[in-house]
């Protein structure tokens, strides 16, 4: 490979976040190398459920997510590649009055933040609009139809293609082994193809592996690789348009853009592990949960299951920005299961921080220093 070994920035991780940062840096005129251990998107970026929402249960995340969602709407147009975004909506189903109440009161917060509201649906309206639901035990729902889904492979490819167009070097099957630190400054990334040097900064966007790499530079980040599984069925004509969330058991189902029903569920097997190994229990549990919610799913054929990671932090919110311990080292990880939808805004804000030295206020609360300083982001409302 006769490409340059030196650039302004080295980004570790060819997932959607690494690529989005690379794209925005290149747009600002910087030279960038992205190293990816396997193929582009091989981490969670091609293993996710492909949903994007603005409605989180704390202000910080809601604001960041809303900024990102707005960018998601026009991403295809900006990147000149159809990312297949559709506003399918999120439908939370509540089984307890106090959850419904909590939701009702939290709607005020979203309104204050300027996030488009959804609506509470009573049981009758649920029955009318979604005849496929089993309403037993349900007290109401919340439908937010500004939220939607994209095609994750298309988004990854859109960023990738644009990166290449802007001269970013994306190296597949090259693993970053160690961060080289010289007199307190991160200067390079060691790889099997040699040392790659960064003049301005090194960015770790390596999903849960970010923690391992940071450690090679002496930085400790509380990011855990929580295995998370999902499954799909054979394709059907589209009936389940919104993402249907069963808040009782924390499971969801929705038809993908290709008509497959995608299911996932929280299970006792969502444990910290580096393995992508699928489990025996997951499909049984997810099927049980969602067949109860949508009985007709019983007659739909399961086609595939897989596993990915939630790169999870103690407060379930991402870690974005420069680390304090080493100069020239930044991270964008710890998305705790929502990183894909945040990538458009995170890429832009990270590039502003790196290249312009501007810390965007929406991104500021997510600094890596917050764990040491005890400024964790609090969840205002916990459902399920």
């Amino acid at each position, binding site marked *: 490979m006769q490409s340059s070994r030196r650039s302004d920035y080295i980004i570790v991780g060819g997932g959607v976040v690494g690529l989005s940062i690379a794209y925005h840096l290149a747009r600002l005129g910087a030279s960038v190398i992205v190293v990816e251990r396997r*193929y*582009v*998107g*091989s981490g969670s970026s*091609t293993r996710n459920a492909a949903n994007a929402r603005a409605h989180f249960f704390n202000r910080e995340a809601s604001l960041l997510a809303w900024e990102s969602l707005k960018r998601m709407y026009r991403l295809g147009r900006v990147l000149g590649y159809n990312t297949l975004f559709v506003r399918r909506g999120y439908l939370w189903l509540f089984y307890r009055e106090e959850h419904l109440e909590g939701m009702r009161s939290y709607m005020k917060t979203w309104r204050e933040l300027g996030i488009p509201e959804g609506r509470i649906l009573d049981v009758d309206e649920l029955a009318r609009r979604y005849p496929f639901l089993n309403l037993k035990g349900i007290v109401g729902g919340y439908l937010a139809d500004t939220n939607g889904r994209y095609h994750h*492979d298309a988004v990854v*490819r859109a960023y990738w293609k644009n990166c290449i167009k802007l001269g970013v070097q994306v190296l*597949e099957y090259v693993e970053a082994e160690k961060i080289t630190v010289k007199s307190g400054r991160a200067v390079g990334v060691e790889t099997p193809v040699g040392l790659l040097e960064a003049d301005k900064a090194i960015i770790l966007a390596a999903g849960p592996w970010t923690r391992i790499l940071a450690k090679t530079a002496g930085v400790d980040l509380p990011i855990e690789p929580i295995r998370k599984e999902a499954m799909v*069925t*054979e*394709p059907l004509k589209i009936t389940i348009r919104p993402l249907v969330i069963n808040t009782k058991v924390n499971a969801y189902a929705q038809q993908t853009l*290709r008509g497959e029903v995608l*299911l996932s569920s929280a299970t*006792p*097997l969502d444990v910290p592990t580096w393995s*992508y190994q*699928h489990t*025996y*229990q997951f*499909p*049984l*549990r997810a*099927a*049980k949960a*969602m*067949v*109860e919610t949508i009985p007709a*799913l*019983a*007659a*739909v*054929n*399961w*086609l*595939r*299951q*897989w596993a990915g990671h939630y790169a999870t932090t103690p407060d379930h919110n991402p870690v974005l920005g420069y680390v304090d311990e080493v100069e020239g080292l930044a991270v964008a990880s710890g998305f705790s299961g929502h990183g894909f939808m945040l990538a458009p805004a995170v890429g832009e804000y990270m590039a502003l921080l790196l290249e312009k030295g501007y810390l965007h206020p929406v991104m500021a609360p997510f600094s890596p220093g917050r764990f040491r300083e005890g400024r964790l982001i609090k969840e205002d409302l916990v459902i399920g």
Partner: protein
Amino acid sequence: MGKVIVCFCEDVTLEEVRRAVKEGYRDLEHLKRLLGIGTGPCQGKQCLVTVAKILAEEAGFDPSEIRLPTFRPPARPVPLGVLAHAELEEE
């Protein structure tokens, strides 16, 4: 001219695979995600080997160098109702 189908579930043609390889997609995993090969109801039982051969031919690889995508359950489709009534293993 009639189509030569290589992935019958997702209707992917020989022509499309060749073109994608020419465009630089040199990994079955990328071809799968771009074209949908192997993601339909037969889960690659008919197309994967053919596509691997085309990839090897077009890109000049030895077939043994080609990395197959990850295999995952189920080996055959199973109704969700069957899973929903299964006995759960004790953890």
